[in-house]
């Protein structure tokens, strides 16, 4: 990269750092990785991500890749997906995995929780209607157990049902036999995962890494 280009990218990086909250060093590392994955192009497509061999063993492969192209995660308040993403969008998705700073206020902590849980919620809510229906939840559990063979498939339904039942019981409490529980809304989702300390669990330590440990991953 020429000097002018690096100067421009420096400026861009600073801009990005301000907007996404990463440090300059982290943005630099992530940029290198982005270039690796996108084969030095400006945008990343699904195929680029799908070609990472290490992801093959992951049962959630498809969902994870989709999450990168989901407009809701890219701070655009519309449903649907995009075909390709740029570096900025890449960073935006990654920013969901930043760890919580040590001294943050209760408000900030709550905001962080909502952000991370929103990401998870979006992964489950595939039709973007704002609720996780029984079908969607079932599919999610089935995917999770997809590497487990036939045992997984049979009980996946049952597990999803039991989980749904639990959500309905905790959030709605009493229900007449004729009432119908449409699905898990985001508020319900927050409620059932109240004791789940997601702000400390949903982080990836890579954000403190140095490039020496970066592998190609292909």
């Amino acid at each position, binding site marked *: 990269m020429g000097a002018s280009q690096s100067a421009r990218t420096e400026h861009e990086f600073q801009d990005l750092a301000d907007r996404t909250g990463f440090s300059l060093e982290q943005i630099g590392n992530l940029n290198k990785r982005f270039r690796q994955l996108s084969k030095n192009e400006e945008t990343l497509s699904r195929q680029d991500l799908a070609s990472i061999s290490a992801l093959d063993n992951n049962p959630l492969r498809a969902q994870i890749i989709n999450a990168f192209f989901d407009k809701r995660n890219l701070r655009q308040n519309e449903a649907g997906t995009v075909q390709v993403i740029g570096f900025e969008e890449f960073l935006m998705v990654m920013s969901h995995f930043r760890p919580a700073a040590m001294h943050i206020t209760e408000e900030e902590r709550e905001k962080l929780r909502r952000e991370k849980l929103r990401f998870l919620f979006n992964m489950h809510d595939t039709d973007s209607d704002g609720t996780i229906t*029984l079908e969607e939840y079932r599919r999610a559990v089935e995917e999770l157990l997809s590497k487990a063979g036939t045992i997984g498939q049979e009980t996946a339904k049952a597990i999803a049902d039991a*989980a749904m039942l639990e959500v*309905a019981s905790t959030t709605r409490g009493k229900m007449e036999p004729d009432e119908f*529980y449409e699905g898990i809304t985001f508020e319900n989702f927050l409620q059932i995962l109240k004791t789940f300390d997601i702000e400390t669990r949903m982080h*990836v330590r890579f954000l403190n890494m140095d490039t020496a440990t970066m592998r190609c991953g292909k």
Partner: protein
Amino acid sequence: MLLSRMVFASLLQYLERLHPSQIANESCLASHHVHPNYTKKAFPVLSLDYHHIQVPFEISLWVLLASLMKLGFHLIPQLSSIVPESCLLIVVGLLVGGLIKLAGEEVPPVLDSNLFFLCLLPPIILDAGYFLPIRPFMENIGTILMFAVVGTLWNAFFVGGLLYAVCQIEGTYLSQVELLPCLLFGSIISAVDPVAVLAVFEEIHINELLHILVFGESLLNDAVTVVLYHLFEEYSGAGEVTPMDVVLGVICFLIVSLGGIAVGAIYGILAAFTSRFTSHTRVIEPLFVFVYSYMAYLSAEMFHLSGIMALIACGAVMRPYVEANISHKSHTTVKYFLKMWSSVSETLIFIFLGVATVAGPHAWNWTFVSVTVILCLVSRVIGVVGLTFIINKFRIVKLTTKDQFIVAYGGLRGAIAFSLGYLLDKNLFPMRTMFLTAIITEIFFTVFVQGMTIKPLVDLLAVKKKQEAKRSINEEIHTQFLDHLLTGIEDICGHYGHHHWKDKLNRFNKKYIKKCLIAGERYKEPQLIAFYHKMEFKQAIELVESGGGVKLPSAVPSQVSMQNIQPKKLPPPVAERALPQFTKGREEEIRKILRSNLQKTRQRLRSYNRHTLVADPFEDGWNDFILKKQRLIELEKKMSNYLTVPGATPDSPTMCRARLASDPNAFYNIKASSDGVPTIQVDLASPQSPDSVNMLNEFSKRGATGQGLGQREGADRDEDQGLMMKPAGKGEKGEEEGGNKNPGLMRCLSDPGPSNEDEEDEPFLP
């Protein structure tokens, strides 16, 4: 043991004075001599031979004393809430020792090092290791190791060095204490003791992170202590330590710790492998767990490796595989025995500490003792604060000041320090008695002062307590989900972080290791499903426990049933939805029938053979009998309104464990064998499922009368709305089966396990 010997020797003498002839006679008989001038006396109908049974008798007496003390404390709730049990036990020991001294006898050295290290300590450590919560332990392993290794080293040198400096001061009359003995003393006293920590922390219910930090530290610092102890002991004779020795010491440390872990892991794998083949001899399954672990400990001690680490490694390694293989009853047995032994051991240790204190000999030196106590506190605080400062740079969840305070304050010393001091050679270390006095004072200080005040301090500082909430299935799903998600993100970033390696280890485990070590097809079961089956099993048990499951659903409106979450297809016919109402009288009748069937079935049980429990259910031709039970179980499950699940396959670990081995009324599924026997397909989970409850054949055969117990209707196969109601008239059979089924689970429940909680979710202590 000399103590009791003395007491009973005097008793014996007294008796001899009373009945000389009898004693003389008995000794004649005992020796089997035929004296030429043997005169025939009256045959001794009753005689006393104490020496014959002396040693086991004394041991039993001590154990009985310990257990009675433990009983006693819990009967006085006020006392046990203020004073931790360990303090009370030490006081009891002091009293017993005092009594013996008053009786004029010599107080025996009960806390003999051999006895302590070979008999009293292993059960406690095994209990801790077997129930070690692996996930939090591994997540914090870096912090724990830092505290254990660097922290202990710092403590040892700080205390030892400064003590030496103090000893050199004029006027303390301590100048004969050399540097090396001081350092040795420092290394003995600086180790945090697992027994004391367990005893005190058990009662304060602190949050998991702090608990695992302090407890993990107390377990892992054993290697450091062992190496330092041997190093200084060896070279105290020589009088100096060269740099070469230091290097050797470091190498020794690595060998001691890694070797200990390796030995433990090998025995753990052996135990897991053995448990694979125990399906026909369920009675001795728990024995393998205990014997292999004890042998791991002894083997490690043989090579002067760290026995504690070997025991921890053995327990932690074998647990997941053994639990998948052994039956439910064996599982309970292992848990019970470990808790029992460790509890008795702990009690005995504290009592003996008290007795040993009275026994002396003591050499009290104000300076030495007080400086020791102060220095230990100071060095602990400085150590913890300093280390946390460094550690927090690498941790995501930082340790706050409150956490640091608890970690520092929870560094209790205990009987291990005393035993190590006791082991010192009198000739090599003339100041041994002074050391022992100081060690005992330090132990007393930490256990009494720190132990008693830590609970109010925890409340005062509002430290986070242990969360009592049960794990919900949603949390479990999301834990797994998050694991995979984070692994995926790490792969996308190309960084091989924690999740990546953990995932790799899990896959390796699943692919190779589990295949070898787990019998049958069970190794394929993923954790989520295992968790789910466990939950299901527990709920079914709860259902039965709550009185046979005769619930009146209409009276419990707050329940949400499957109907509510299934998307509606057709408007449900009203009649079928209505759940049957019971009159009071009817309910009583049903209960009576259930109870009487309970008794009837109990009498039908097979006689109990010590060598074989009930033969493998798949082999027997009990199909009818067993199928009835199976159906009952399905009925019960449906009535609970919670779970509507296809029964777990017979090979699933939890279902296998549910096979109550000593109970013919076992709780499991059987594959349908022939057409003659109607089968039950239970798959109510899906509205589109073609299967639904098909109990029509069975029930119509019985021609039952009366109302159903809220059973589900045998629906036509094509339509279903989730759960359907059974038309009235099929109840009788259900009631009988209810009675028959209950004993099965009643037996399971009849020995009250420690608790019904999931051990995996439990921290160390029940």
